[in-house]
Protein backbone atom coordinates (compact mmCIF):
# COMPACT_ATOMS: atom_id res chain seq x y z
CA UNK A 1 0.00 0.00 0.00
CA UNK A 2 1.10 3.52 -0.73
CA UNK A 3 0.39 4.64 2.83
CA UNK A 4 2.94 2.28 4.27
CA UNK A 5 6.11 4.02 5.43
CA UNK A 6 9.62 2.57 5.34
CA UNK A 7 9.23 0.44 8.44
CA UNK A 8 5.81 -0.79 7.47
CA UNK A 9 4.34 2.02 9.53
CA UNK A 10 1.27 4.05 8.68
CA UNK A 11 2.56 7.64 8.56
CA UNK A 12 -0.91 9.07 9.20
CA UNK A 13 -1.36 7.04 12.31
CA UNK A 14 2.17 7.87 13.42
CA UNK A 15 1.50 11.59 12.93
CA UNK A 16 -1.70 11.31 14.88
CA UNK A 17 -0.07 9.48 17.76
CA UNK A 18 2.82 11.94 17.90
CA UNK A 19 0.39 14.88 17.87
CA UNK A 20 -1.57 13.26 20.68
CA UNK A 21 1.60 12.75 22.70
CA UNK A 22 2.69 16.34 22.07
CA UNK A 23 -0.69 17.67 23.12
CA UNK A 24 -0.67 15.53 26.24
CA UNK A 25 2.86 16.71 27.07
CA UNK A 26 1.88 20.36 26.78
CA UNK A 27 -1.26 19.83 28.84
CA UNK A 28 0.62 17.79 31.43
CA UNK A 29 3.51 20.17 31.97
CA UNK A 30 1.26 23.20 31.85
CA UNK A 31 -1.19 21.63 34.26
CA UNK A 32 1.50 20.59 36.73
CA UNK A 33 3.05 24.06 36.66
CA UNK A 34 -0.32 25.68 37.16
CA UNK A 35 -1.20 23.34 40.01
CA UNK A 36 2.18 23.95 41.64
CA UNK A 37 1.70 27.70 41.38
CA UNK A 38 -1.72 27.40 43.01
CA UNK A 39 -0.42 25.47 45.96
CA UNK A 40 2.56 27.78 46.40
CA UNK A 41 0.15 30.68 46.53
CA UNK A 42 -2.43 29.05 48.80
CA UNK A 43 0.13 27.72 51.25
CA UNK A 44 1.86 31.06 51.59
CA UNK A 45 2.72 32.26 55.11
CA UNK A 46 0.26 30.57 57.48
CA UNK A 47 -0.18 33.47 59.88
CA UNK A 48 -3.00 35.36 58.18
CA UNK A 49 -5.60 36.68 60.60
CA UNK A 50 -8.92 36.31 58.82
CA UNK A 51 -12.09 38.33 59.35
CA UNK A 52 -14.62 36.90 61.83
CA UNK A 53 -16.48 33.80 60.75
CA UNK A 54 -13.82 32.71 58.25
CA UNK A 55 -13.98 29.02 57.41
CA UNK A 56 -10.94 26.86 58.25
CA UNK A 57 -8.00 28.03 56.13
CA UNK A 58 -8.27 25.42 53.34
CA UNK A 59 -12.02 25.86 52.97
CA UNK A 60 -11.64 29.60 53.17
CA UNK A 61 -9.08 29.61 50.37
CA UNK A 62 -11.43 27.55 48.23
CA UNK A 63 -14.52 29.62 48.93
CA UNK A 64 -13.22 33.21 48.97
CA UNK A 65 -13.99 34.90 45.64
CA UNK A 66 -11.52 37.70 46.48
CA UNK A 67 -14.09 40.45 45.94
CA UNK A 68 -13.22 42.63 48.93
CA UNK A 69 -16.80 43.37 49.95
CA UNK A 70 -15.81 42.54 53.53
CA UNK A 71 -13.09 45.19 53.30
CA UNK A 72 -15.54 47.78 51.98
CA UNK A 73 -18.07 47.02 54.73
CA UNK A 74 -15.53 47.10 57.58
CA UNK A 75 -16.16 50.29 59.65
CA UNK A 76 -12.55 50.70 60.91
CA UNK A 77 -11.23 49.69 57.42
CA UNK A 78 -8.73 47.20 58.78
CA UNK A 79 -9.09 44.47 56.16
CA UNK A 80 -6.46 44.37 53.46
CA UNK A 81 -6.84 42.40 50.25
CA UNK A 82 -3.47 40.75 49.75
CA UNK A 83 -1.90 41.98 46.51
CA UNK A 84 0.16 39.79 44.19
CA UNK A 85 3.66 39.12 45.48
CA UNK A 86 2.64 39.49 49.13
CA UNK A 87 3.39 36.99 51.89
CA UNK A 88 -0.20 35.83 52.32
CA UNK A 89 -2.48 33.96 49.91
CA UNK A 90 -3.23 36.30 47.00
CA UNK A 91 -6.37 38.40 46.96
CA UNK A 92 -7.70 37.24 50.32
CA UNK A 93 -8.63 39.54 53.21
CA UNK A 94 -6.66 39.70 56.45
CA UNK A 95 -5.83 42.18 59.17
CA UNK A 96 -2.81 43.06 61.27
CA UNK A 97 -3.79 43.27 64.93
CA UNK A 98 -0.94 45.56 66.03
CA UNK A 99 -1.94 48.32 63.63
CA UNK A 100 -5.63 47.66 63.10
CA UNK A 101 -7.51 45.23 65.31
CA UNK A 102 -11.07 44.02 64.76
CA UNK A 103 -13.42 46.23 66.76
CA UNK A 104 -16.00 43.42 67.05
CA UNK A 105 -19.04 45.15 65.55
CA UNK A 106 -22.12 43.47 67.06
CA UNK A 107 -23.85 43.30 63.64
CA UNK A 108 -20.74 41.79 61.94
CA UNK A 109 -21.04 43.69 58.63
CA UNK A 110 -18.14 41.81 57.01
CA UNK A 111 -19.93 38.48 57.36
CA UNK A 112 -23.10 40.00 55.96
CA UNK A 113 -21.16 41.41 53.01
CA UNK A 114 -19.56 38.09 52.05
CA UNK A 115 -21.39 36.76 48.97
CA UNK A 116 -19.96 33.24 48.90
CA UNK A 117 -20.13 32.17 52.54
CA UNK A 118 -16.34 32.10 52.97
CA UNK A 119 -17.13 34.16 56.06
CA UNK A 120 -19.70 31.82 57.47
CA UNK A 121 -23.19 33.27 58.01
CA UNK A 122 -23.47 30.81 60.89
CA UNK A 123 -21.56 33.32 62.98
CA UNK A 124 -24.33 35.46 64.44
CA UNK A 125 -22.73 36.54 67.71
CA UNK A 126 -19.36 38.25 67.43
CA UNK A 127 -18.35 36.78 70.80
CA UNK A 128 -18.25 33.39 69.07
CA UNK A 129 -15.72 34.54 66.48
CA UNK A 130 -12.35 32.81 66.59
CA UNK A 131 -10.03 34.90 64.44
CA UNK A 132 -6.98 33.83 66.38
CA UNK A 133 -5.76 33.45 69.92
CA UNK A 134 -3.97 35.98 72.11
CA UNK A 135 -0.66 34.67 73.36
CA UNK A 136 1.34 36.38 76.09
CA UNK A 137 5.11 36.50 76.10
CA UNK A 138 5.39 36.23 79.89
CA UNK A 139 9.06 37.14 79.83
CA UNK A 140 8.34 40.55 78.37
CA UNK A 141 4.91 41.27 79.82
CA UNK A 142 5.05 44.25 82.18
CA UNK A 143 2.35 42.83 84.42
CA UNK A 144 4.09 39.49 84.70
CA UNK A 145 7.24 41.37 85.68
CA UNK A 146 5.34 42.85 88.60
CA UNK A 147 4.55 46.30 87.18
CA UNK A 148 0.98 47.55 87.30
CA UNK A 149 0.03 47.53 83.61
CA UNK A 150 -2.90 45.19 82.84
CA UNK A 151 -3.81 47.33 79.82
CA UNK A 152 -4.68 44.25 77.81
CA UNK A 153 -7.11 43.15 80.48
CA UNK A 154 -8.71 46.57 80.73
CA UNK A 155 -9.10 47.02 76.96
CA UNK A 156 -10.29 43.48 76.26
CA UNK A 157 -13.89 43.58 74.96
CA UNK A 158 -14.47 40.36 76.89
CA UNK A 159 -12.65 41.48 80.01
CA UNK A 160 -12.94 38.95 82.77
CA UNK A 161 -13.67 36.15 80.30
CA UNK A 162 -11.06 36.23 77.55
CA UNK A 163 -8.40 37.82 79.73
CA UNK A 164 -8.46 37.34 83.48
CA UNK A 165 -6.06 38.52 86.14
CA UNK A 166 -4.42 36.08 88.43
CA UNK A 167 -3.16 37.66 91.62
CA UNK A 168 0.00 36.34 93.15
CA UNK A 169 2.19 37.22 96.07
CA UNK A 170 5.28 38.94 94.86
CA UNK A 171 7.50 37.55 97.56
CA UNK A 172 9.87 40.51 97.64
CA UNK A 173 7.45 43.13 98.84
CA UNK A 174 3.91 43.49 100.00
CA UNK A 175 2.68 44.34 96.48
CA UNK A 176 0.69 41.84 94.50
CA UNK A 177 1.54 40.70 90.98
CA UNK A 178 -1.46 40.90 88.61
CA UNK A 179 -0.80 38.33 85.92
CA UNK A 180 -2.98 38.52 82.82
CA UNK A 181 -4.11 35.09 81.62
CA UNK A 182 -5.76 34.42 78.24
CA UNK A 183 -8.62 31.93 78.19
CA UNK A 184 -8.87 30.29 74.81
CA UNK A 185 -12.53 29.35 75.27
CA UNK A 186 -13.50 33.04 75.23
CA UNK A 187 -10.78 34.84 73.28
CA UNK A 188 -12.07 35.93 69.85
CA UNK A 189 -8.65 37.00 68.58
CA UNK A 190 -9.82 40.53 67.85
CA UNK A 191 -6.37 41.89 68.63
CA UNK A 192 -7.40 44.93 70.67
CA UNK A 193 -4.98 43.74 73.38
CA UNK A 194 -2.12 43.51 70.89
CA UNK A 195 -2.82 47.04 69.68
CA UNK A 196 -3.01 48.31 73.27
CA UNK A 197 0.10 46.61 74.66
CA UNK A 198 2.56 49.38 75.63
CA UNK A 199 5.78 47.38 75.22
CA UNK A 200 8.00 48.29 72.29
CA UNK A 201 7.18 45.03 70.58
CA UNK A 202 3.83 43.77 71.74
CA UNK A 203 4.11 41.17 74.51
CA UNK A 204 0.62 39.90 73.72
CA UNK A 205 -0.06 38.80 70.16
CA UNK A 206 -2.78 37.21 68.12
CA UNK A 207 -1.81 34.06 66.28
CA UNK A 208 -3.87 31.55 64.35
CA UNK A 209 -4.95 28.74 66.66
CA UNK A 210 -3.13 26.04 64.75
CA UNK A 211 0.19 27.79 65.29
CA UNK A 212 -0.08 27.99 69.08
CA UNK A 213 -2.59 25.50 70.38
CA UNK A 214 -1.63 21.98 71.28
CA UNK A 215 -3.91 19.00 71.61
CA UNK A 216 -3.70 16.42 74.35
CA UNK A 217 -5.34 13.68 72.34
CA UNK A 218 -8.59 11.84 72.85
CA UNK A 219 -7.07 8.94 74.76
CA UNK A 220 -6.56 11.04 77.87
CA UNK A 221 -9.60 10.85 80.10
CA UNK A 222 -9.60 13.62 82.64
CA UNK A 223 -11.65 11.70 85.16
CA UNK A 224 -12.40 14.61 87.42
CA UNK A 225 -14.10 16.55 84.62
CA UNK A 226 -17.03 14.17 84.27
CA UNK A 227 -18.95 11.78 86.50
CA UNK A 228 -18.47 8.05 86.33
CA UNK A 229 -19.00 5.45 88.95
CA UNK A 230 -15.32 5.21 89.69
CA UNK A 231 -14.64 8.91 89.96
CA UNK A 232 -17.73 9.39 92.06
CA UNK A 233 -16.25 7.04 94.56
CA UNK A 234 -13.01 8.95 94.83
CA UNK A 235 -14.49 12.38 95.02
CA UNK A 236 -14.03 13.60 98.56
CA UNK A 237 -17.27 14.68 100.09
CA UNK A 238 -19.42 13.66 97.12
CA UNK A 239 -22.98 12.50 97.70
CA UNK A 240 -24.21 8.94 97.87
CA UNK A 241 -22.87 6.69 95.09
CA UNK A 242 -25.17 5.16 92.49
CA UNK A 243 -27.22 2.21 93.64
CA UNK A 244 -25.17 -0.18 91.57
CA UNK A 245 -22.31 0.01 94.04
CA UNK A 246 -23.92 -0.16 97.46
CA UNK A 247 -20.79 -1.21 99.30
CA UNK A 248 -18.70 1.69 98.17
CA UNK A 249 -19.83 4.62 100.18
CA UNK A 250 -17.52 7.58 99.81
CA UNK A 251 -16.57 9.16 103.03
CA UNK A 252 -17.10 5.93 104.91
CA UNK A 253 -14.23 4.99 107.09
CA UNK A 254 -12.02 2.36 105.56
CA UNK A 255 -11.69 -0.44 108.04
CA UNK A 256 -8.09 -1.12 108.94
CA UNK A 257 -6.72 -3.77 106.69
CA UNK A 258 -9.75 -3.55 104.39
CA UNK A 259 -9.75 -2.59 100.73
CA UNK A 260 -10.28 0.92 99.54
CA UNK A 261 -14.04 1.25 99.11
CA UNK A 262 -13.91 2.40 95.51
CA UNK A 263 -12.30 -0.79 94.27
CA UNK A 264 -14.79 -3.20 95.72
CA UNK A 265 -17.34 -3.17 93.01
CA UNK A 266 -14.76 -4.16 90.44
CA UNK A 267 -14.64 -7.51 92.17
CA UNK A 268 -18.34 -7.83 92.76
CA UNK A 269 -19.27 -8.73 89.20
CA UNK A 270 -18.21 -12.38 89.57
CA UNK A 271 -15.33 -11.99 87.18
Amino acid at each position, binding site marked *: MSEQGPGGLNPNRRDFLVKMAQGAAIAGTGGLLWDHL*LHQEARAAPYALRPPGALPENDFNAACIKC*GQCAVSCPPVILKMEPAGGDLPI*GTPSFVARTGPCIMCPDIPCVKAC*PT*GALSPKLTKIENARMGLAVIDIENCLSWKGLRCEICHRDCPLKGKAITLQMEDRGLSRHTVFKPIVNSDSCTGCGICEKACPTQISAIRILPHHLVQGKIGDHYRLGWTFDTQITQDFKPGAGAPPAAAPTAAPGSVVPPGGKAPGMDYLNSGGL
Partner: protein
Amino acid sequence: MSAPETRRHATQDNHSIPTGLMAWRYLILRRISQAGILLMFFGSFHWAWHVAKDTPLLSGNLSASKFIGLIPLTDPFAALQIFLTGHVLAQESVIGAAIVLGFYLLLGGRVFCSWVCPVNMVTDGAGWLRSRLEIQPIMHLPRSLRYFVLAASLIITVISGLAAFEWVSPVGMAHREIIFGLGMGFTALLAIFLFDLLILKNGWCGHFCPLGAFYSLIGRTALLRVRFDKTTCTSCGECARVCPEPQVLNLKKLEERGYVFSGECSNCGRCTPICPEGSLKFDFKPLIRTHNAQALAHADAIDVQRRTK
Protein backbone atom coordinates in the same frame (compact mmCIF):
# COMPACT_ATOMS: atom_id res chain seq x y z
CA MET B 1 -20.37 57.21 -10.41
CA SER B 2 -21.89 54.36 -8.48
CA ALA B 3 -23.63 54.92 -5.18
CA PRO B 4 -21.00 53.37 -2.86
CA GLU B 5 -18.24 55.53 -4.32
CA THR B 6 -20.07 58.78 -3.70
CA ARG B 7 -20.69 57.70 -0.14
CA ARG B 8 -17.04 56.98 0.39
CA HIS B 9 -16.07 60.42 -0.83
CA ALA B 10 -18.59 62.00 1.45
CA THR B 11 -17.06 60.38 4.53
CA GLN B 12 -13.50 61.06 3.52
CA ASP B 13 -14.01 64.73 2.76
CA ASN B 14 -15.68 65.47 6.05
CA HIS B 15 -12.70 65.46 8.33
CA SER B 16 -14.05 67.99 10.78
CA ILE B 17 -13.53 67.36 14.50
CA PRO B 18 -17.06 66.10 15.23
CA THR B 19 -16.80 63.37 12.56
CA GLY B 20 -13.36 62.53 13.85
CA LEU B 21 -14.83 62.07 17.29
CA MET B 22 -17.70 60.09 15.79
CA ALA B 23 -15.21 57.67 14.28
CA TRP B 24 -13.72 57.14 17.73
CA ARG B 25 -17.03 57.13 19.56
CA TYR B 26 -17.04 53.47 20.62
CA LEU B 27 -13.44 53.57 21.76
CA ILE B 28 -14.18 56.64 23.85
CA LEU B 29 -17.34 55.10 25.28
CA ARG B 30 -15.49 51.88 26.07
CA ARG B 31 -12.79 53.73 27.95
CA ILE B 32 -15.43 55.69 29.86
CA SER B 33 -17.22 52.45 30.71
CA GLN B 34 -14.05 50.63 31.78
CA ALA B 35 -12.66 53.50 33.83
CA GLY B 36 -16.06 54.50 35.19
CA ILE B 37 -16.77 51.06 36.60
CA LEU B 38 -13.35 50.93 38.25
CA LEU B 39 -13.88 54.45 39.56
CA MET B 40 -17.21 53.49 41.13
CA PHE B 41 -15.51 50.57 42.92
CA PHE B 42 -12.59 52.77 43.94
CA GLY B 43 -14.78 55.61 45.17
CA SER B 44 -17.01 53.27 47.15
CA PHE B 45 -13.98 51.91 48.98
CA HIS B 46 -11.65 54.88 49.35
CA TRP B 47 -14.03 57.84 49.43
CA ALA B 48 -17.04 56.06 50.91
CA TRP B 49 -19.31 56.89 47.97
CA HIS B 50 -22.74 55.82 49.08
CA VAL B 51 -26.39 56.10 48.15
CA ALA B 52 -27.70 55.88 51.71
CA LYS B 53 -26.22 55.32 55.13
CA ASP B 54 -24.04 52.20 55.14
CA THR B 55 -25.01 51.49 51.54
CA PRO B 56 -21.98 51.88 49.30
CA LEU B 57 -22.61 52.74 45.65
CA LEU B 58 -20.76 49.74 44.27
CA SER B 59 -18.93 47.62 46.79
CA GLY B 60 -16.49 44.85 45.93
CA ASN B 61 -14.73 44.33 42.62
CA LEU B 62 -15.31 42.57 39.31
CA SER B 63 -15.21 39.13 40.97
CA ALA B 64 -18.27 39.91 43.04
CA SER B 65 -19.97 43.12 44.04
CA LYS B 66 -23.14 44.69 45.25
CA PHE B 67 -24.70 47.64 43.47
CA ILE B 68 -26.48 50.22 45.66
CA GLY B 69 -26.76 47.63 48.39
CA LEU B 70 -29.44 45.74 46.49
CA ILE B 71 -28.24 44.02 43.36
CA PRO B 72 -25.62 41.31 43.86
CA LEU B 73 -23.28 40.76 40.92
CA THR B 74 -20.93 37.80 40.67
CA ASP B 75 -18.44 36.77 38.02
CA PRO B 76 -20.14 33.59 36.76
CA PHE B 77 -16.80 31.99 35.81
CA ALA B 78 -15.39 32.60 39.30
CA ALA B 79 -18.60 31.25 40.84
CA LEU B 80 -18.37 28.16 38.61
CA GLN B 81 -14.80 27.54 39.76
CA ILE B 82 -15.68 27.93 43.43
CA PHE B 83 -18.60 25.57 42.92
CA LEU B 84 -16.16 23.04 41.41
CA THR B 85 -13.91 23.23 44.47
CA GLY B 86 -16.76 21.60 46.34
CA HIS B 87 -17.83 24.66 48.29
CA VAL B 88 -21.57 25.23 48.47
CA LEU B 89 -21.98 28.82 47.34
CA ALA B 90 -24.11 31.10 49.43
CA GLN B 91 -27.35 32.18 47.80
CA GLU B 92 -26.24 35.75 47.17
CA SER B 93 -23.38 34.76 44.89
CA VAL B 94 -25.59 32.35 42.94
CA ILE B 95 -28.16 35.09 42.31
CA GLY B 96 -25.36 37.49 41.40
CA ALA B 97 -23.86 35.04 38.92
CA ALA B 98 -27.29 34.47 37.33
CA ILE B 99 -27.79 38.23 36.90
CA VAL B 100 -24.40 38.74 35.26
CA LEU B 101 -24.79 35.64 33.11
CA GLY B 102 -28.23 36.78 31.95
CA PHE B 103 -26.91 40.25 31.17
CA TYR B 104 -24.11 38.94 28.97
CA LEU B 105 -26.30 36.29 27.36
CA LEU B 106 -28.45 39.15 26.11
CA LEU B 107 -25.76 41.71 25.33
CA GLY B 108 -22.91 39.55 24.06
CA GLY B 109 -20.57 37.62 26.31
CA ARG B 110 -17.40 39.36 25.38
CA VAL B 111 -18.95 42.76 25.92
CA PHE B 112 -17.27 42.18 29.28
CA CYS B 113 -13.90 41.97 27.54
CA SER B 114 -14.01 45.22 25.65
CA TRP B 115 -16.34 47.33 27.80
CA VAL B 116 -15.49 46.27 31.37
CA CYS B 117 -12.22 44.34 31.70
CA PRO B 118 -9.31 46.55 32.77
CA VAL B 119 -6.74 44.31 31.07
CA ASN B 120 -8.32 45.28 27.76
CA MET B 121 -6.85 48.76 28.16
CA VAL B 122 -3.37 47.22 28.45
CA THR B 123 -3.76 44.86 25.50
CA ASP B 124 -5.39 47.53 23.33
CA GLY B 125 -2.41 49.74 24.08
CA ALA B 126 -0.02 46.96 23.15
CA GLY B 127 -1.98 46.22 19.97
CA TRP B 128 -1.97 49.88 18.94
CA LEU B 129 1.76 50.24 19.53
CA ARG B 130 2.44 46.97 17.75
CA SER B 131 0.71 48.17 14.59
CA ARG B 132 2.37 51.58 14.88
CA LEU B 133 5.84 50.03 15.12
CA GLU B 134 4.95 47.45 12.47
CA ILE B 135 6.33 44.59 14.53
CA GLN B 136 6.52 41.38 12.58
CA PRO B 137 5.06 38.18 14.00
CA ILE B 138 7.52 35.65 15.38
CA MET B 139 5.11 32.91 16.35
CA HIS B 140 1.67 31.63 15.66
CA LEU B 141 -0.77 29.95 18.02
CA PRO B 142 -4.30 28.80 17.32
CA ARG B 143 -6.96 31.03 18.80
CA SER B 144 -8.81 27.95 19.99
CA LEU B 145 -6.04 27.58 22.58
CA ARG B 146 -8.16 29.62 25.01
CA TYR B 147 -10.81 26.90 25.13
CA PHE B 148 -8.15 24.41 26.19
CA VAL B 149 -6.96 26.84 28.86
CA LEU B 150 -10.59 27.17 29.96
CA ALA B 151 -10.98 23.39 30.19
CA ALA B 152 -7.65 23.10 32.00
CA SER B 153 -8.65 25.73 34.55
CA LEU B 154 -11.81 23.80 35.38
CA ILE B 155 -10.01 20.45 35.61
CA ILE B 156 -7.25 21.88 37.80
CA THR B 157 -9.89 23.49 40.00
CA VAL B 158 -11.43 20.10 40.64
CA ILE B 159 -8.05 18.47 41.30
CA SER B 160 -6.51 21.16 43.51
CA GLY B 161 -9.64 22.30 45.32
CA LEU B 162 -8.79 25.91 44.53
CA ALA B 163 -10.39 28.20 41.96
CA ALA B 164 -7.56 27.70 39.47
CA PHE B 165 -7.91 30.81 37.36
CA GLU B 166 -8.91 33.18 40.15
CA TRP B 167 -5.63 32.51 41.97
CA VAL B 168 -3.45 33.42 39.00
CA SER B 169 -5.74 35.71 37.02
CA PRO B 170 -4.04 38.89 35.78
CA VAL B 171 -7.56 40.26 35.30
CA GLY B 172 -8.28 39.72 38.99
CA MET B 173 -4.90 41.15 40.01
CA ALA B 174 -5.52 44.23 37.87
CA HIS B 175 -8.89 45.27 39.22
CA ARG B 176 -8.16 44.14 42.79
CA GLU B 177 -4.97 46.14 42.97
CA ILE B 178 -6.46 49.19 41.33
CA ILE B 179 -9.31 49.15 43.85
CA PHE B 180 -7.68 47.82 47.04
CA GLY B 181 -4.03 48.76 46.81
CA LEU B 182 -1.04 48.12 44.61
CA GLY B 183 1.15 45.06 44.71
CA MET B 184 3.15 43.12 42.18
CA GLY B 185 0.12 42.62 39.95
CA PHE B 186 1.39 45.28 37.59
CA THR B 187 4.30 43.00 36.67
CA ALA B 188 1.75 40.51 35.33
CA LEU B 189 0.19 43.31 33.31
CA LEU B 190 3.60 44.39 32.08
CA ALA B 191 4.29 40.81 31.00
CA ILE B 192 1.00 40.74 29.08
CA PHE B 193 1.81 44.08 27.48
CA LEU B 194 5.25 42.94 26.32
CA PHE B 195 3.92 39.57 25.17
CA ASP B 196 1.20 41.24 23.11
CA LEU B 197 3.55 43.89 21.81
CA LEU B 198 6.58 41.84 20.87
CA ILE B 199 5.68 38.17 20.77
CA LEU B 200 2.12 37.44 19.74
CA LYS B 201 -0.46 39.86 18.35
CA ASN B 202 -3.57 39.87 20.55
CA GLY B 203 -1.74 37.25 22.57
CA TRP B 204 -3.50 37.35 25.92
CA CYS B 205 -7.07 38.35 25.03
CA GLY B 206 -7.14 36.48 21.73
CA HIS B 207 -5.34 33.27 22.65
CA PHE B 208 -4.99 32.60 26.37
CA CYS B 209 -7.56 34.26 28.58
CA PRO B 210 -9.99 31.57 29.82
CA LEU B 211 -12.38 34.24 31.06
CA GLY B 212 -12.67 35.55 27.51
CA ALA B 213 -13.14 31.96 26.32
CA PHE B 214 -15.92 31.50 28.85
CA TYR B 215 -17.66 34.64 27.66
CA SER B 216 -17.13 33.60 24.02
CA LEU B 217 -19.09 30.45 24.72
CA ILE B 218 -22.03 32.26 26.29
CA GLY B 219 -22.00 35.09 23.75
CA ARG B 220 -23.68 33.34 20.86
CA THR B 221 -27.23 34.00 21.96
CA ALA B 222 -26.59 37.72 22.28
CA LEU B 223 -29.18 40.10 20.92
CA LEU B 224 -26.79 42.95 20.23
CA ARG B 225 -24.77 42.01 17.17
CA VAL B 226 -22.90 43.62 14.31
CA ARG B 227 -25.07 43.42 11.21
CA PHE B 228 -23.40 42.81 7.86
CA ASP B 229 -24.87 44.36 4.74
CA LYS B 230 -23.55 42.38 1.79
CA THR B 231 -25.12 44.73 -0.75
CA THR B 232 -22.72 47.55 0.09
CA CYS B 233 -19.59 45.65 1.17
CA THR B 234 -16.70 46.05 -1.24
CA SER B 235 -14.48 43.51 0.53
CA CYS B 236 -11.90 46.19 1.22
CA GLY B 237 -10.74 44.47 4.41
CA GLU B 238 -10.55 47.60 6.55
CA CYS B 239 -12.66 45.93 9.24
CA ALA B 240 -10.43 42.85 9.51
CA ARG B 241 -7.40 45.11 9.76
CA VAL B 242 -8.63 46.82 12.93
CA CYS B 243 -10.46 43.83 14.44
CA PRO B 244 -8.66 42.16 17.38
CA GLU B 245 -10.48 38.91 16.49
CA PRO B 246 -10.38 39.05 12.68
CA GLN B 247 -11.52 35.45 12.31
CA VAL B 248 -15.05 36.56 13.23
CA LEU B 249 -15.17 38.69 10.06
CA ASN B 250 -14.90 35.74 7.69
CA LEU B 251 -16.70 37.08 4.61
CA LYS B 252 -18.26 33.79 3.62
CA LYS B 253 -19.79 33.29 7.06
CA LEU B 254 -20.87 36.92 7.19
CA GLU B 255 -22.76 36.54 3.94
CA GLU B 256 -24.39 33.33 5.14
CA ARG B 257 -25.56 34.71 8.46
CA GLY B 258 -25.98 38.38 7.73
CA TYR B 259 -24.27 39.33 10.98
CA VAL B 260 -21.16 38.57 13.04
CA PHE B 261 -22.15 35.25 14.52
CA SER B 262 -19.10 34.16 16.50
CA GLY B 263 -19.14 34.61 20.26
CA GLU B 264 -15.52 35.68 19.99
CA CYS B 265 -16.69 39.09 18.75
CA SER B 266 -16.49 41.42 21.72
CA ASN B 267 -18.76 44.15 20.32
CA CYS B 268 -15.87 46.56 20.69
CA GLY B 269 -17.16 48.72 17.83
CA ARG B 270 -13.87 49.14 15.99
CA CYS B 271 -15.20 47.90 12.66
CA THR B 272 -18.49 49.79 12.52
CA PRO B 273 -17.17 53.37 12.27
CA ILE B 274 -14.21 52.42 10.12
CA CYS B 275 -16.19 50.65 7.39
CA PRO B 276 -16.14 53.06 4.43
CA GLU B 277 -19.42 51.73 3.11
CA GLY B 278 -21.24 51.51 6.42
CA SER B 279 -21.80 47.80 5.83
CA LEU B 280 -21.18 46.91 9.46
CA LYS B 281 -23.50 48.32 12.08
CA PHE B 282 -24.67 47.42 15.54
CA ASP B 283 -28.14 45.98 15.35
CA PHE B 284 -30.71 44.11 17.36
CA LYS B 285 -30.55 40.47 16.33
CA PRO B 286 -34.30 39.82 15.83
CA LEU B 287 -34.38 42.77 13.39
CA ILE B 288 -31.27 41.85 11.42
CA ARG B 289 -33.11 39.59 8.98
CA THR B 290 -35.65 42.27 8.05
CA HIS B 291 -32.98 44.96 7.82
CA ASN B 292 -30.90 42.82 5.51
CA ALA B 293 -33.93 42.04 3.38
CA GLN B 294 -34.71 45.75 3.16
CA ALA B 295 -31.12 46.51 2.16
CA LEU B 296 -31.31 43.85 -0.52
CA ALA B 297 -34.59 45.24 -1.87
CA HIS B 298 -33.11 48.73 -1.87
CA ALA B 299 -30.05 47.59 -3.75
CA ASP B 300 -32.23 45.79 -6.28
CA ALA B 301 -34.30 48.92 -6.79
CA ILE B 302 -31.17 51.00 -7.43
CA ASP B 303 -29.96 48.35 -9.81
CA VAL B 304 -33.21 48.38 -11.74
CA GLN B 305 -33.16 52.19 -11.85
CA ARG B 306 -29.67 52.26 -13.22
CA ARG B 307 -30.47 49.69 -15.87
CA THR B 308 -33.58 51.49 -17.03
CA LYS B 309 -31.76 54.82 -17.37
